[in-house]
C-alpha cells in the first residue's frame, strides 16, 4: 500500500492523544472557573447589591454556624471568628433568595445539558434533546392539567397537598410517561433510532395538542398560570428544590459519566458497538431513562427551559470533541454557566422587573454558537 509521508514517528498517536487530553482538562478547569465566577457575581448582583465580602461572610456563617452548633468540639479545635456582614439584610438576601435560585439554575443547567449530550450520543442524532423526544410537551401537559384541574382534584382527594407540588408531580410523571411511550413504540418497530426520534416528535405533538386544549378551556387566571409555567424560569427556587435536585443531579451525572466509553463506542453504529461487547438496547434504555429522570425532575421545578439541552452539547462538541468522558462534564459546566448567567442578567437587566430567562439565554447561547461555527473547526481544543 502507499506509504504516508506525514506523521510517522512511533509515538505520534501517543503524543496526539496526550496533548489533546491536557487541552481538554485545561478547558474543563477554565469552564469551572467561569462557573464559580458566575456564582459569585449572581450572589452579589440584584435589585439590592451585596458586596463580595459580605457574600463571603454570609456563606461562611451559613456553613460554619450549624457545624459549630452540631460539633462543639470542632469550635474549640479550629476556632474561626468571623464578623457579621456589614449589611444586616445580606444574610436574608443571599441565603433566603439568591443562593437557592443560583443553585437551582446550576443544577438545572447541568441536568438538561448532560441529558442532551447523552441523548444525542445514544441516538447519534444532533437534533435530539429532552425536547425533541416529546418530554417537554408531555411535562407541559402534565403541568397544564395540574393548573386547570388541580384545585378541584386536590380539594377532594389530597387536601394537604399544595397546588405547586401537584404541578411538579404531574410534570414529572408525564415527562416519564412520554419517554416510556416513545421507547415502547420504537421497540415495537425494531428499536431503530429514526423510529425513536419520529415517535418522540409524534408523542410531543399529541401532548402539545393537549396543552392547546387545556389553554382553550381554561379560565383567564389559569391561562396566565399555564403561560408563566410554559415560559420557564427560576421563580420556583427554594432550598427544598435544591435539596431534592442535588442528589438527583449528582447521581444521574455519575451514572451517565460511567457510561462514557459505551457512548463513545455507539458513535460507530449499533452493530459495531455490539461487536465490541456492548449491549446496545440495554445501554440505550438505561441512558434514556436516567437522562429523562434528571431533566424531568428539574423541569418540574423550573417550567420549560429550552435550548440548553440542544445547544450546550453542540457547543461542547465543537470545543472538546466527541469523547463523552470529557463531553459530559463539559456540557454540565457550560450548561450551568449559560443558564446561571442568563438568569442573572434576566433578573437584573430591567431590575426590579424580571424578564423571562429564555430571552437572554437564546441571545447569549445563540451568539456563542454562531461565533464557534464561523470561527471554524480547525482551531478546536482537541
Amino acid at each position, binding site marked *: 500500500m502507499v506509504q504516508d509521508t506525514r506523521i510517522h514517528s512511533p509515538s505520534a498517536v501517543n503524543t*496526539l492523544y496526550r496533548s489533546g487530553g491536557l487541552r481538554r482538562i485545561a478547558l474543563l478547569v477554565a469552564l469551572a472557573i467561569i462557573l464559580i465566577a458566575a456564582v459569585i457575581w449572581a450572589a452579589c448582583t440584584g435589585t439590592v447589591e451585596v458586596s463580595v465580602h459580605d457574600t463571603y461572610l454570609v456563606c461562611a456563617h451559613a456553613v460554619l454556624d450549624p457545624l459549630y452548633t452540631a460539633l462543639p468540639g470542632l469550635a474549640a479545635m479550629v476556632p474561626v471568628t468571623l464578623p457579621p456582614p456589614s449589611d444586616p439584610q445580606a444574610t436574608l438576601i443571599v441565603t433566603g433568595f439568591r443562593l437557592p435560585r443560583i443553585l437551582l439554575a446550576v443544577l438545572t443547567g447541568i441536568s438538561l445539558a448532560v441529558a442532551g449530550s447523552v441523548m444525542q450520543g445514544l441516538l*447519534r442524532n444532533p437534533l435530539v434533546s429532552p425536547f425533541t423526544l416529546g418530554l417537554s410537551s408531555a411535562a407541559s401537559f402534565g403541568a397544564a392539567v395540574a393548573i386547570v384541574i388541580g384545585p378541584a382534584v386536590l380539594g377532594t382527594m389530597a387536601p394537604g397537598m399544595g397546588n405547586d407540588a401537584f404541578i411538579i408531580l404531574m410534570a414529572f410523571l408525564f415527562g416519564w410517561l412520554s419517554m416510556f411511550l416513545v421507547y415502547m413504540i420504537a421497540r415495537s418497530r425494531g428499536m431503530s433510532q429514526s423510529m425513536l426520534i419520529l415517535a418522540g416528535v409524534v408523542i410531543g405533538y399529541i401532548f402539545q395538542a393537549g396543552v392547546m386544549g387545556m389553554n382553550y378551556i381554561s379560565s383567564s387566571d389559569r391561562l396566565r398560570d399555564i403561560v408563566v409555567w410554559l415560559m420557564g424560569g427560576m421563580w420556583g427556587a427554594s432550598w427544598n428544590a435544591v435539596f431534592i435536585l442535588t442528589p438527583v443531579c449528582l447521581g444521574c451525572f455519575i451514572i451517565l459519566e460511567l457510561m462514557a466509553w459505551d457512548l463513545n463506542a455507539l458513535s460507530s453504529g449499533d452493530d459495531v458497538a*455490539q461487536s465490541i461487547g456492548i449491549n446496545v438496547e440495554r445501554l440505550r434504555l438505561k441512558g434514556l431513562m436516567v437522562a429523562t429522570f434528571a431533566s424531568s425532575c428539574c423541569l418540574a421545578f423550573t417550567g420549560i427551559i429550552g435550548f440548553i439541552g440542544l445547544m450546550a452539547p453542540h457547543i461542547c462538541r465543537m470545543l472538546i470533541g466527541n469523547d463523552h468522558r470529557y463531553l459530559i462534564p463539559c456540557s454540565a459546566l457550560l450548561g450551568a454557566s449559560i443558564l446561571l448567567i442568563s438568569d442573572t442578567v434576566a433578573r437584573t437587566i430591567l431590575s426590579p422587573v424580571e424578564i423571562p430567562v429564555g430571552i437572554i439565554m437564546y441571545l447569549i447561547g445563540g451568539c456563542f454558537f454562531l461565533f464557534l461555527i464561523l470561527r471554524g473547526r480547525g482551531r478546536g481544543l482537541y
Partner: protein
Amino acid sequence: MELVLDTITTAYGNTVAVEDVSFTVLPGQVVALIGPNGSGKSTLIKTIATILKPLRGSITIDGLDIARMHPIDLASRIGYVPQQYTYTLYSTVMETVLLGRRPYIKWSVSDEELSRVQRALEAVDMAGSAGRFMDQLSGGERQKVFIARALAQEPALYLFDEPTSALDIRHQLGVMETLRILGTSRGATVIVALHDLNLAYRYADRVVIMDQGRLVAAGKPQDVLTPDCIRSVYGVETVFVTNEHGEFILPVRG
C-alpha cells in the same frame, strides 16, 4: 481459532435469509464468502458476529458456543467491520480506531493501547491522518479507518463485510494483502464477504459460495470457482485467462 458453523438458520421476522449453513474454518485461513446480492453473506457474517441471533444451529469457536460467551469475552475474540459504516461529527481517526480497544479499556488509556492504535493505523497507511476528522476523509480512507479499528481490536477471528467496496483498485489490493498477512503472520482466521471473484480467487484459502441463503459450494478457490458454478449462481458466462501473473476470471456474457 477454529470456527464451526453447524446448520445455521437466520431470519428477519418471517423471512429466512440464511438456511442450514454449515462449514468449518481452520486457524490462519482466509475464507472468502461470495454470492450474488441478497444471497445471505452479510446476514451470515452478522450472525457469526452475534449481532443477529440464529433461529437454529450453533456456532463454536475453539469448541466454545458463542451464544454462551460473555459479550466482552466475545469482543476480544471476534472483530467485525460492517458493510455500511457510521461515524459522528467531531470524531477523529484516532478516536475511532481507539474504540477497537474498548474491550480492554476500563477508563484511562495506557501507552500500550495507544501504540496498538498506532500499529493498526500504520497497517492501513493511515498513521499520518490520526488527527483528522472522520468527515474530512474520502470514502476509501474511512473504510481503511474502520479496518484499522478491527485490527486494533486484535481478535483471533476477523469478519469483514465487503471491505473493498469503496476502494480503488490499488487500495483493494492493499486491503486484501493486509487480510492475507493477518492469516499468514498472525495466525488469525479471516472471513471476508466479497463481490470481486478475482480477489477471492487470488487471496482466499477457501471460498464459500452462497445463493438464496444456502451454501452452494465450499472449498479451495480452484475447486469451487468454476465456470459452471459461476454460471449457476450468477447466471454469467466466464472464461479463465492465464498469463505470467496467474489465472484470472473474465466475465464474457451476462
